[in-house]
Structures are given as C-alpha cells and as structure tokens.
C-alpha cells in the first residue's frame, strides 16, 4: 500500500519525478561509465608503463641517493641511483621466487649528440665512399661539398663583419677557400686521409650545426627486452643481433627529433589537421610552422647536389605549373601551403623531395656518436650502430612512451663509465688510444683534486675538444673500437646495471598480489645479502605519471560529486515540495492513527522507489554505454591520451563491482536526500487534516 501511494505520487507529479529521476539516472549512469573508464584508464596506464619500461617490479640499488622515477629521469637531471654491482647475482638470488618470470637488466641515461651539419654528413659519406666504396659516388660528393663550401664563404663573410676575433675569422675563410679550390681536390686523390683530416678538423665544424640532441636511452639486454616488453615492435630495420652492440630509435623520438625539420613540420601540420581538425586559415601555430618551412628552405636545398637539385626543380616546376628558375624560391613557393592545397603538397613532398634528401639525420645502418660523462664528470663517448627503429604498439603518438630509445647494455656501461671487469685490457687499449687515462670512479675525486700529482689524470686536448664539439675525431675513433666488439650473454649479465625490470609469470598476479610478491623478492634479495631494493611499477613510474592517472580519477570523482550534490539538493527540494503539497493528506493519515514513523517510512519508500526505478535505468544505460564504448573504443585525440589509454582507443570495461558501487552511491544520496523531508513530514500535526485547503 505504501509502495502504491509512493508510485502513484511519483506518477502524479511526473514532471518533478522526471527531473529528479534524470539527475539520479544520470548520476548512476556516470558512476557506472566513469568506473568503467577509470578502470580502463588505469589498465591503460599500467600497460603503457609496464609493457614499455617498468615491468611489474623494478629493482635498484638500496644505496641510491634518489628515488627511481622512470619518467622523471628523462625530463630532469638523471637521478643518482648508484648501481647494482652484479646483475647475475640478483638474477640468481631471484630464482628462489617462483612467480618471477624474467629479469631484464636496465640503465637509464642521457647523452648529447652533436647534430651533424650537412657538410659533416657529406664528409662522412665521402670518407665511407673512399674506404668502403662505392667509389663512383665520390665525384658527386666532392661536387656537393664544394657547393656547400661556396655557401659557407658567403656565411663567413657575413660573420667576419661581427666577429671579435678577426684573425680567426680570416683563417677560417682561408681554410674554406682552400677546401673549395681546384688545387686542393686535385691533391685529394693522392692522399685522401690527410685531406679528409683537414676537412674534418678545419671545415666540418664550420658547417651549420643542426643543433644538439639529447638522446634519452635505456641500456638493456635488447633480446630479453624485446621478448618481455609486450608492446615493443620493430618498425623498420631489425633487432640488434644477439651478442652485438647497437642502438634502436624510438619511433616517436625519431620522428620528432631526428627527422628533417621541414618534413617533420609538414607531418605535424597534417596531424593537427587530421586528428584535431585544425585549419591553417585559423590556427596561428600552423601558420607559424608554414612560415618557418618557407624561410628554412635550406633544410632541403642544402642537401641537394647539382644533379638532384635539377631533378627536384623540374618536378616542382611541373607540380606548381611554375617557371621559377631559382630552386630556393621554388621550394619556398611549394611549401607555402593552405588548407586547400595541403594534402596535395604533402603527398608531393614525399613523392618528389623526400627521396632526394636525407629524411632523417640518422638512418638505419648509420653510426651515432653518443657523448656523455661519468658521474665524476669524466667525458665518455661511444659509437653505436643504428640497427632499427622500434615503436610501442598503440603508443606511437605518445610523447611519454616516446621518451626512451634503446641501446645495448655494454655500450651503456661504456658510456656511463660503469666499471666493466670483463674486458679491462680492451678498455685500457681504447683509453690509451684516445689519450685518456683510467680514473677509478670511486677514487676520482682524490685523483682529480688531491693526492700525488703523479696520479692526476693526463687528459689530452682531444678529449676536451671532443666535448666542446670542435674536434670529435679523436674520441670518435676511440669509440669506434668498441663499437663492433661482440659480447656473450654471460658478459652482459655479469656486469653492473642501474636498475632492472621484473616480469611475473602470471600477469593476473601482478594485479592481485603484487605486494606479496614484492615482499618475497625483497626477502630473497636480503637473504642473498644484496643491497638491492624492489619497488612496484606504480612507484617506479614516478609522480609525473601517477599524478596523471590520479588526476583523471580525481576529476571523475569531483564530477560525480557535483552531479550527486545537485541531485541531492533537487531531491530534497522536490520531496519538501511534495511534503508541503500533501500537508492535509499527511495530517489525515496521522489523524486516522498513523504514527510518525509511518510517515517517515512513506517518504523513504517514495524516495526509494525513485531510486530503484531511475537507478536501474541509469545503471542499464551506463552499462549499455560502457559495453558500446568497450566494443567501439573511444579514440585518443592527444599525445597524453595515447599513453593514458594504453593505445589508440580507450575500451571501458563493465564489472559487477561497478554496478555495486553505483547502487551504493545512489543509495547514500537517496538516504541523505529523503532524511530532512521525511522528518519535516513526520512533524506535520494531525490537526492539519482539519484545516481545509481552500
């Protein structure tokens, strides 16, 4: 009977009921959808972090001065994490923990790479052509180099007017003129080594530097990394072969930082147009990109020798229907893109220009010289061969996932001066050739700043010049020695690492009882007396990423909170109105002998009925939305979202627990909402029945 009264009342005041119902339903729906989304986001972040960088657990030295924060390491200064002295011991210690599937040795680092000017690149190509062939490329390379020297003379003239050291400026100009002279090149064939040395030392540094790159990288057991990190895919080139040194570019980094800037800007404009629907006509960022492309035509034309220049000129003239004879002006005109012609120009760029230029500063097969320093400030360099470009499946557009490139662990150790007991004599040889004396890392301070003068390191100019970027040939050659040396798995594993990633056999366990397993891993390490600590991925990812996912969660709860607060106010208001309208009815019921509690019950049931009806509807709608979104996926539209979604789309999941939480939430809201009106109603005196309405 009470239920009937409640339902009839709800139907009688259907407008009010619908408003309240809509809020309750929307709130419930949001709770269900929001939880589905949050769960999916948490799973997405977990995937993005665990399957690209952290694994389920991370190990690092308990002597570390800083905390391991995987993503901060790339953004700020490389933290002081000390090192795990012998990875193999850790590996062995953890064989006692059956849940552990794989342990991947790691080290995070950052190196400086001096961006090579076109002149440098051409000189490297020339050296390679002379030593390794093909010899028939030599004439065209020489022609190109002389062309670049020609433009360099003009640049130097301009510089000389503002230069402080006119003497040096004059010397530089003389060098360039010599490099551009017929006499120099006629001598070249007789003694290419000396000529190349001159060009490397005197001319190459004068070229327009393409800047300094910061390469963040993870030094690791690449084979093991590739096997265990689920999102890792080789995009082009190949995996570094087992036992070999090498470098793998992260595709995101490769596209953003290594690609020809004009091409990259075109890519960015295309992405903004395609993904975010931006228009060149209205977007000042895009206009600026186009302006830069127009001004920096040298990014393209400098790379074109006479022959290629002709090819591009002819094709562009045809493409644009222009008779412009000047290649620079022609390219400038070509890059003047609008919303109307962009897609055609973009296509034409990759068809006409891209094949004729070096699209990336470093291509698969190239060797990169990475410069770094040890913790004691000691300069280091390694050369590594680029074997391929990799991507993380679904995270190709994520900047966070795009932070780290990959490198073999041996090169990492060399570059970061981590003592390598396996081949000390080999390193010694390298050092001697580079004119660098070994300094024990632990005693570096003493040796550099105190103690016997005999022990002070003799560092020749080559090393310092190398860091200054003036003459990198010495260190470059030294680094080259190590480049091709192979290593065994035992050598790889027996050395020091900075950190390590642990994968569990059963990924479901990583969700349910990661803490237990973490404790067991910690116990095993302690038992073996290893000063190594273990942290879960949630901690290792660092505050940057955890605040990202917690931020989204907080946003959701605030949103739900606001909706329910509004619902609460509206329900209170509505029930109070309902009370006021029914004063006589309630009075009558009381006069007939209904206790106060009966009236409270009456209101509770009315609110409860509303909750059940609209809560169920809201849950059903929410479940339907979650299922639909889960099947279809919400596309990621920004860099961050790709990471947060753990891929291209977010696929929310529906769980019974979500519905339970929704029931709980709406129940609490209803309870609070009906409390005050019910009490007010129960205080209506029975005498109210006697007071006629009209």
């Amino acid at each position, binding site marked *: *009977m009470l239920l*009937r*009264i409640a339902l*009839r*009342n709800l139907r*009688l005041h259907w407008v009010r009921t619908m408003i309240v119902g809509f809020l309750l339903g929307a709130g419930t729906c949001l709770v269900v959808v929001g939880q589905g989304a949050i769960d999916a986001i948490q799973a997405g972040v977990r995937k993005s972090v665990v399957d690209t960088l952290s694994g389920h657990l991370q190990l690092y030295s308990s002597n570390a001065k800083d905390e391991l924060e995987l993503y901060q390491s790339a953004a700020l200064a490389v933290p002081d994490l000390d090192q795990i002295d012998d990875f193999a011991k850790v590996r062995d210690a953890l064989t006692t923990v059956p849940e552990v599937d794989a342990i991947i040795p790691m080290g995070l680092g950052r190196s400086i790479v001096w961006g090579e000017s076109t002149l440098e690149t051409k000189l490297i190509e020339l050296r390679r052509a002379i030593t390794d062939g093909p010899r028939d490329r030599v004439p065209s390379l020489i022609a190109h180099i002389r062309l670049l020297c020609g433009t360099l003379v003009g640049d130097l003239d301009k510089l000389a007017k503002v230069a402080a050291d006119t003497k040096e400026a004059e010397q530089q100009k003389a060098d360039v003129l010599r490099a551009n002279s017929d006499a120099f090149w006629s001598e070249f064939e007789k003694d290419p080594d000396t000529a190349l040395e001159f060009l490397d030392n005197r001319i190459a540094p004068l070229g327009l530097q393409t800047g300094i790159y910061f390469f963040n990288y993870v030094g690791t057991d690449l084979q093991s990394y590739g096997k265990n990190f689920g999102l890792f895919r080789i995009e082009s080139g190949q995996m570094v072969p087992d036992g070999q040194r090498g470098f793998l570019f992260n595709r995101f980094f490769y596209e953003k930082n290594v690609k020809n800037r004009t091409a990259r800007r075109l890519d960015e404009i295309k992405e903004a147009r395609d993904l975010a629907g931006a228009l060149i006509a209205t977007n000042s960022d895009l206009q600026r990109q186009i302006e830069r492309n127009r001004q920096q035509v040298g990014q393209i034309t400098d790379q074109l020798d006479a022959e290629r220049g002709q090819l591009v000129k002819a094709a562009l003239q045809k493409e644009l229907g222009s008779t412009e004879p000047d290649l620079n002006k022609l390219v400038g005109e070509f890059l003047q893109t609008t919303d109307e012609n962009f897609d055609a120009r973009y296509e034409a760029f990759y068809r006409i220009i891209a094949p004729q230029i070096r699209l990336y500063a470093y291509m698969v097969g190239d060797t990169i010289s990475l410069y770094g320093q040890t913790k004691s400030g000691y300069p280091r360099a390694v050369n590594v061969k680029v074997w391929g470009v990799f991507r993380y499946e679904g995270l190709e557009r994520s900047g966070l996932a795009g932070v780290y490139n990959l490198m073999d662990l041996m090169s990492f150790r060399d570059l970061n001066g981590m003592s390598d007991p396996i081949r000390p004599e080999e390193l010694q040889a390298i050092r001697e050739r580079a004119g660098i004396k070994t300094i024990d890392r632990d005693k570096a301070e003493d040796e550099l700043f105190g103690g016997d003068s005999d022990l002070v390191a003799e560092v020749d100019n080559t090393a310092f010049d190398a860091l200054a970027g003036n003459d990198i040939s010495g260190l470059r050659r030294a680094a080259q020695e190590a480049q091709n040396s192979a290593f065994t798995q035992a050598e790889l594993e027996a050395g020091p690492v900075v950190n390590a990633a642990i994968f569990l056999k059963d990924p479901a366990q990583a969700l349910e009882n990661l803490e237990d397993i973490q404790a067991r891993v910690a116990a095993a390490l302690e038992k073996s007396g290893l000063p190594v600590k273990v942290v879960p991925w949630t901690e290792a990812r660092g505050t940057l990423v955890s605040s990202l996912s917690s931020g989204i969660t907080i946003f959701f709860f605030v949103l739900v909170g606001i909706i329910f607060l509004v619902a609460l106010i509206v329900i209170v208001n509505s029930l109070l109105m309902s009370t006021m309208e029914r004063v*006589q*009815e309630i009075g*009558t*019921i*009381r*006069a*007939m*002998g*209904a*206790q*106060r509690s*009966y009236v409270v019950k009456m209101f509770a049931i009315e609110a409860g009925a509303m909750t059940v009806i609209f809560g169920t509807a809201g849950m059903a709608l929410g479940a339907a939305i979650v299922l639909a979104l889960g099947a279809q996926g919400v596309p990621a539209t920004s860099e961050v979202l790709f990471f947060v979604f753990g891929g291209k789309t977010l696929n929310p999941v529906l769980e019974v627990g979500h519905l339970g939480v929704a029931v709980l939430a709406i129940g609490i809201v209803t309870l609070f909402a009906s409390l005050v009106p019910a009490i007010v109603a129960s205080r209506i*005196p*029975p*005498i109210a*029945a*006697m007071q*006629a*309405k*009209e």
Partner: protein
Amino acid sequence: MTQQPSSSNHIVALENVTKDYPLGKTTVHALRGVDIALDKGEFAVLAGPSGSGKTTVLNLIGCVDVATTGQVRIAGQDTKVLSESARTNLRLHTLGFIFQSFNLIPVLDLYQNVEFPLLLRNDISKIERKRRTLELIERVGLTKQMKQRPGELSGGQRQRVAIARALVTRPAIVLADEPTANLDSATGQSILDLMREMNRDGTTFLFSTHDPQVMSVARRVIRIFDGKIAADDHGLQPQADTHPAAAAH
C-alpha cells in the same frame, strides 16, 4: 493512564476545558470552560456559528489537540497525560474522522481508501480486512465504484467513502466536522441518513455544523457560542428522519 471510575460511563467527557491559541501577540480564547459528556451510542450535534469553538471541541475530542486547562477524557483516558504516540494509538483504535472536505487520499482508489486505516493496525488479518472493507463499501452503496479514484467520484460519493473509511476500524466515536457543508441538501440528507443508520450499531456520533438540516436529525444539540456551551438539548425527536427504520426507533 488515569482511570476515573466516577465518569467512566461517559465515552467522552470534557470538564471545564479551556483552549487558548496564540495569535501574534494576543491570545485567542477559543474555549472558556466547556463541560460536555457523551454517552455511548449518542448521535449529537455541536452547533454554533463559525469561530464559536466547535471545531476546537472536535479537535480536542479527536486527540489531535490538547486542552490548555481542564480535562478531556476519551474512553476513560485523560488525553493530556498521554504521549503523542499513545494519542495516535487512541485515534487509531477508538476514533473515526469524517472531514468537511472528505480528505480522501487522491492516489488510492475507493477500496484502498476504505482499507487504509486497517493497514495501520497490525491486529487485523488480511481476510478480516478484506471482509470489513467490502462490507462497508456495500453498506455505503459504492460497490460498483470500488476501483475508482476519488477524483472520479461525486462529492456525495466521496463523503460516503469517508464514512466507510471512518467506520471500518469500528471506532467507539466518529467525529464529523461539517460533513455536509460541501454537499447540496439532497446529498447532505442522504449522508445524514447513512450516518443515522450506522449510529444504530452503537457507534457514538458527534457532528459540528451550523446547518439546520443536520440539527434536525439529531437527538441532542449542543449549542456553543463564544467558547462556551450556550445550550444542551437532550432527548430531541429527530424530525426529518426519512429512513423508515429510523421512524420506528
């Protein structure tokens, strides 16, 4: 619970009752010393112009209000010393109400309205509830309209429903506040006839009215004026009893 055997033969007993209402800064003296005693089975009218205090008397007897001074005893119980909850219980078991504006619950149909007071009691079985409800609906002649809602009924029909509802709990006293005020005279007459008939079962009826038609059917008319009893005429012969059975009484 205060039992006073000396006056226990009266189902309703008001002794020197006053009732004051605060009205802004002044006080309205609605009742200034009223004595009324009703015996079981009486059919009495409380007459007087509006504002005379008759509704106040009904409220006090109906236990929806308490006297300022004096004593109101219903079925031997002093209402003033009872708790709110106990007064509610007294209403539920001893009193029935018929209101001037019927006060049916709009969202319930006729049957449910009549049944409602029984649902408040937990001493009546489902079968008994149904039996009593159907019986009373039949007695007020609305069996055919059982599934209709108050909004679909005429004023007279609604008041019949209200009578059925007031009687379904078999109360000792039925209080009716101007039960015919919202009805035309013919309908009002039929309602009065119906109540007379119910009265024969021994239920005490007390009306408030200023309608001469109502007064003419009463055997006792208590006239109230300015919060005091002006006259109390016992043993009147009801003149306009159109019910054949009533004439024989």
